[in-house]
């Protein structure tokens, strides 16, 4: 009874969310998992006009075996690494630069955030121009800009490169999301009570020491939020890729695009399989986070 009084209110508060996620996420994932274990490779099978069979993990084996899907996975990894490190770097740097109140802070902050307001569809229109592959006399976009400012050696074919092209797509993604990571860090910086800062200053800490020993350690939960948010965006990175490249472009294929292609073909078994593989990849990303939280709990 005491337990109920103690734990009843928080449980009641969170119950609706748990229910909704249970239905809209887990229910659908289970449905998707079931489909991934069948041979429903056409609409006719999926809708029951033709019969389907249970095939176990065969789809997973078939898909993982293909060169093209391995290429997609490799691209995803590359994209995630570049996107994540870029946004974390710029987001943190900008928050750090702004924390100590710059002139016209509000204006600068809004400008840094602005790219996020430009939807991927719209951003794709302009970045498609900027990432133009022409160099030399016919150069346009960023390559042309490099020429104008005398950095000709930086010219390159951007995403038209089957090994590293996907990293070029991460540039607009970094442009879009760094401002948000900045906001996260800024909220973190500003959530730290002034007393803490003052106390450290009274103790004789200089600015750097203040950040190094007082402020940064407080930010790790915020940094983790940022990593997870950006990480999940990169896994789902789809809008931006198809706004700049094409679903068919080999250079920029990632699993989300494979999934899309399978879906347009009515190949629900394969689309679900890729979806579940993506979820498994997420598990890899999220497990360290959970371990960290659990450890933090223990230490408390």
């Amino acid at each position, binding site marked *: 009874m005491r337990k109920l009084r103690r734990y009843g209110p928080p449980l009641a508060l969170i119950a609706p969310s748990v229910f909704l*996620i249970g239905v809209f996420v887990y229910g659908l994932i289970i449905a998707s998992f079931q489909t991934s274990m069948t041979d429903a490779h056409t609409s006719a099978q999926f809708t029951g006009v033709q019969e389907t069979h249970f095939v176990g993990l065969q789809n997973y084996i078939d898909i993982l075996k293909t060169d093209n899907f391995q290429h997609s996975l490799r691209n995803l990894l590359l994209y995630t690494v570049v996107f994540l490190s870029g946004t974390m770097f710029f987001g943190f740097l900008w928050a750090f630069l702004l924390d100590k109140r710059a002139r016209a802070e509000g204006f600068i902050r809004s400008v840094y955030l602005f790219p996020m307001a430009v939807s991927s*569809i719209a951003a794709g229109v302009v970045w498609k121009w900027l990432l133009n592959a022409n160099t030399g006399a016919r150069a346009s976009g960023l390559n042309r800009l490099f020429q104008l400012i005398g950095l000709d050696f930086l010219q390159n074919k951007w995403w038209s490169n089957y090994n590293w092209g996907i990293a070029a797509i991460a540039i607009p993604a970094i442009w879009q999301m760094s401002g948000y990571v900045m906001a996260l860090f800024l909220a973190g910086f500003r959530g730290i*009570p002034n007393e803490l800062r003052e106390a450290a200053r009274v103790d004789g800490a200089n600015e750097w020491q203040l950040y190094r020993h007082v402020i940064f350690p407080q930010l790790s939960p915020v940094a983790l939020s940022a990593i997870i948010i950006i990480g999940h965006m990169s896994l789902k990175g789809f809008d931006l890729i198809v706004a700049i490249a094409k679903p068919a472009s080999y250079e920029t294929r990632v699993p989300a695009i494979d*999934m899309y292609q399978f879906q347009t073909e009515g190949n629900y078994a394969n689309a679900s399989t890729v979806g579940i593989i993506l979820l498994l990849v997420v598990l890899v990303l999220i497990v360290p986070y959970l371990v960290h939280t659990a450890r933090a709990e223990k230490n408390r």
Partner: protein
Amino acid sequence: MSALETQVVQSGVVDSRVGKHGFQWGTFLRHVLLIFFLVVVLLPVYVLLVTSFKGITEAQPARAWLLPSGWPWEWTLENWKGAWSGLPGIPAVGPAMGRTLLLVIPSSIISAMLGSMNGFVLSRWRFPHANLVFTFLLFGMFIPYQAVMVPLYKLVMWLDIPSGIPTLILLHVVYGIPITTLIFRNYYESVPSELIEASRVDGAGMMRTYWSVVLPISVPSFVVVLIWQFTSAWNDFLFAVFFASSPSQGPVTIALRNLAQGAQLTNYGASMAGALLASLPTLVVYIALGKYFIGGLMAGSVKG
């Protein structure tokens, strides 16, 4: 609030006075860097802007960095007019923006409240296995939408919610739960627990503690979450295209996509004008919410 702001400004002044000669130098360098990044961030925006004033023959990638010729007297406003109210063969972005506001405002406010309450009970008013519940919710963020679209569509049909905007509100709230919960929880984790414990010791109930202690210090996080939810609902294309794709009922991204990629002949000028138009409400939100980023709120609540 104004007293707080004064305090903040003062502490800012103190900040910049700290240190001797080297620090002035540091402030200068800081501003130089801030301006450099400002320019870098604005480069694509510059291209969007100048192209939006160019006529069809000039709005070409090769001329991306050039100002419209005849500057500034002959800048054409046709693109903006066309994008706003529609020209023959060009879908209108303006009316779609109105519809999108009806979708985005309720969904981002509901999500933020839900996330704040979830974050609170998962970090500072815990119950057994709270971490497990958190993981359960968090994992929802990674659902591969495309793979579940058919069952999701069936689910929405079965629920029989009015199609269009109401369906989109529901979806944005539901799929916003993981990320809003995550942001609030981690923010509250970084807040010293003494604050809440004190209130708890005072014998305040959960809702009272939430309302009078937690909510007032949540402002920076609300800013972050509202920015996120507003932006992602405003810019969402995937749900929009599946659940409200009719050109006369769809939100702004549908209009934008039809503008940018629907036609055989791309009207770059109008696309870019439309892109900027569609970004303006979000920008207004950033500016409006941005001022609540002011630090020192914590200190205020402790003292107050």
